Structure formats: structure tokens, C-alpha cells
């Protein structure tokens, strides 16, 4: 007797079930979101008092916002995979016919959604605490677009790196060691896309940065898809 072929839509069904599990766990015992939110607000408060005039704009503002996002995401990635290894979730998963790529995709979607929720809190806090002239309502679509693309890249790369580091004893060290070099180009691109609208008066955002951001996300989506089945194994 051999295993029957996966039913149609099994992969998307598995991703939905795994994503729902992530949110249920986060609602039941909040860990990832509070960690990321508290860290981000803490960094903004430190910058508020650490910078000479307590205000930033332009490329510096974009850098502060995006680097804070990256560091908060690193905390989230570690937390997201910790339960899988510590509670045996990864072993339990590997005994099921579900594809490893479904697990990595669900982790990426979970992290992406957590980052988007983070930004709903962090961006207003950033504008209030640090942005020199506040955030113009007209700039919101551009800011949201740049952050959605940046968050997607961080989430996909983070899920991939997290899956590689999941079984390692030094997971907390491995995640930043692998993720930061991979994410530097993404942060640089997002900073270029974001800084014109954080400048006063606003500059025009060049389309090429958006294309480059989307390309980065696309490349890492493909890489994750291709390699995830091999890395969530012994």
C-alpha cells in the first residue's frame, strides 16, 4: 500500500491550517507581537532622547524605521520557530504528509501579518516621536506600499532562515547571522523608496526602487519554494 496522492488544494489547505495555528497560538499566549511592538517603541523612545534635537527626516528617518523593523523581525523569527523545536511541533509535522514548503509558507505569511500589525502601531508612534514634520496623509499610500513590500521580503527570508536554524542549538545566534546579510539589500531598497516621502517637502519616489523591491521579494519567494522541502528534514 502506498500513500495516496495529495488531494487537490491540499497544499493551500495545509497553509491555511498552519497559518490559523500560528494566530491561534499568538492569541492564546501572545509572544511574537508584544515582543516586536515593545522593542520598536522602545527604540523610538531611545532615539527621541538620544538624538540631539530628537527629530529625524529623509533618509535618516527611513533608516531608523526600517532598521528597527528588521531588528524587531529578527526577534519575531526566533520566537516563531522556537515552539516548533521546543514543543516537538516540527517532528509532529514531519510525520504528516503535509509539504515542508507549506510550513515555510505559513511561517512567512504569519510573520508578514505580524509585521503589518506591528506597523499599524509602530508607524504612528514613529511619526509622533521622531518624524520632524509628522506624516502627511497624502504620503500614507507610499509608506504603506513600501512597508508591505519590505515586510514581505523580511518575512520570506526570515521564514527560510528560521527553518534552517530551527534545529540548531544556537538558533538565537544563527538567525541574525544568516538573515542580516541577506536583508541588507532589501533595507537599502526600501529606504530609497521610503525616504522621499519622509522628506519635507516631499520628493518624488522613483519607480525603479519599487521594481527592485518587488524583484527581491520574487527572488526570495522562488528560492524558498525551491529549497524548503530539503531543509525541514534531518
Amino acid at each position: 500500500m502506498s500513500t495516496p496522492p495529495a488531494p487537490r488544494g491540499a497544499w493551500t489547505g495545509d497553509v491555511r491550517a498552519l497559518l490559523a495555528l500560528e494566530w491561534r497560538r499568538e492569541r492564546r499566549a501572545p509572544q511574537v507581537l508584544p515582543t516586536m511592538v515593545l522593542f520598536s517603541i522602545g527604540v523610538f523612545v531611545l532615539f527621541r532622547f538620544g538624538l540631539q534635537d530628537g527629530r529625524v527626516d529623509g533618509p535618516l528617518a527611513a533608516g531608523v524605521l526600517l532598521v528597527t523593523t528588521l531588528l524587531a523581525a529578527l526577534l519575531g523569527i526566533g520566537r516563531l520557530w522556537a515552539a516548533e523545536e521546543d514543543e516537538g511541533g516540527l517532528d509532529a509535522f514531519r510525520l504528516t504528509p503535509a509539504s515542508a514548503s507549506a510550513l515555510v509558507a505559513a511561517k512567512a505569511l504569519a510573520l508578514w501579518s505580524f509585521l503589518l500589525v506591528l506597523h499599524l502601531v509602530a508607524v504612528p508612534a514613529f511619526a509622533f516621536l521622531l518624524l520632524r514634520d509628522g506624516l502627511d496623509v497624502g504620503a500614507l499610500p507610499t509608506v504603506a506600499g513600501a512597508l508591505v513590500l519590505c515586510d514581505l521580503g523580511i518575512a520570506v527570508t526570515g521564514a527560510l532562515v528560521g527553518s534552517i536554524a530551527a534545529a540548531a542549538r544556537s538558533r538565537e545566534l544563527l538567525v541574525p547571522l544568516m538573515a542580516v546579510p541577506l536583508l541588507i539589500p532589501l533595507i537599502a531598497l526600501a529606504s530609497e523608496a521610503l525616504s522621499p516621502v519622509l522628506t519635507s517637502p516631499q520628493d518624488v519616489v522613483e519607480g525603479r526602487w519599487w521594481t527592485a523591491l518587488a524583484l527581491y521579494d520574487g527572488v526570495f519567494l522562488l528560492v524558498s519554494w525551491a529549497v524548503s522541502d530539503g531543509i525541514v528534514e534531518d
Partner: protein
Amino acid sequence: MPPEAAPPTAGLAGPDRAAPAIVLDGLVRRRGERVVLREVSVIVPAGATVALLGPNGAGKSTLLRVLAGLMRPMGGVCRVLGHELPDGRHDLRGRVGYLAHEPMLYRDLTVRENLAHRARLLRVADPAGRVRELLEATDLVRRADFPVHALSRGLTQRTTAAATLLSDPELLLLDEPLANLDPSASARLGALLGPRPAVPAPASPGAGPAARPARTRVIAGHDPEAALAESDIVVGLRDGAVTLLATPDTVGPDQIAALYA
């Protein structure tokens, strides 16, 4: 294989000698530099129950993990339910139930949520019905909505057993399955995790229950008396090597004593 062990096919009077469920020939597994399993050779017929005995650190849990497809064999032949490992491990998914030392449950989720999630990923035909059935069988109905972290060790073990049985697997790999259980729960779970005969295909489609193979079991534990009573084959491991391979009726107290000496 060490000199005192019998050849792999000897003494394996199982219920069904036709189709082996497990074929190990010279299986090797290392952890770093340390050899955890050395040249393990055993053939287990389908439907047989294997008692896996040995002192702590003998390699019993590692062998179970290799058979479950969670660890790669690093040498020799390892064939489980007709699939060569590691390449065929994906074909085993859902057909092997592994009850490990660790519960493999999400602590913040309830018993029911854990079982329902696992059933969904195992592609169980009627997940809610199967979960209900196993909650009743393991006497967990009253605790179904308790988070796992609030359960005692015995209740956690019962939840783990229910999770192991969700897909009604053909091969059960049980690592001390009755640990932490009171006598009543032990009897209940012992029956649930017990042998299950094959059901032949009905004469015509729909004329009877669907065909299913006999359940093969490998049980690791430290109670030789109980192990000998319910097994068809006894495998003794020491320092990763098979030092005892026999049928229970041929195993004497001196061999058990030598295994744990």
C-alpha cells in the same frame, strides 16, 4: 552484528512471515563522531510486535526515530513498509505512528485543538469524528478543552497516544507508551495501542469494511516481563548494537540480565 546475536532472519516467528514491515541490514547512524546505531540487522514481519530492550543510551529512541523517517540512516539498508529510507520517507507519512518521550503537542492549545490540527495535516477523512472517537477512547472528553500545559503527565501521555492513533497507522513506534499512567489508563491505552489483525478486502466493493493491513508494533521499554508477554520478537540493543534477537519463549532471565549488566 556482534557475535552473540542471531542472524537477522532467525527466530522471527511473527504472525505473517510473507511481507516484512521492517528490513534493517547493517543500519548505521552517527551523532557527530559517536556511533549511535552500529550494524543493526533485523527483519520484522508485518503484524508482528517487537519488544526493543536495552539500557539507557543503548540507541532505542534513535532507532525508533530512524524508523519513523525523522532521522536519516547513515549506512546499511533501512526499509520500512516497503520504502527504502531516507529516499522513501515521504511515502511513510501518515502510515507510521510515533509516540515519543516528548509529547509533540503545542502546550498553549487545548487537547481538542492539538488533535484537530494534527488530524487535518494527516488528511484524516472525518477529522472531527475521529478526534471525538479518540477522545472517548482515551477518556479525555472532560479534558478536551483544557490547554495541554494544564494537564498532568499521565493525561498528556493519553493525548499523545490519541494523536499517534489519528491516522490509524500500520506501523506503531512506541517509546515507553505506558509511562506516567495509572493502572486503569494503562489498561485502556494498552488495548488501544495493541495489535490489530489485517482486514481482507471484501469480495465485492462496498460489501464490507475496507481492507487494511495488520498493525506492526515496535515497543521500546524497560519492563522485560511485560515486553516478553506481548511481543513476537525481542531485540536487545547495547551500545547501539543488537546483542539479543530471539522469540520471547527462548529468552531466559540470564540473557535479560546480561543485556542490562
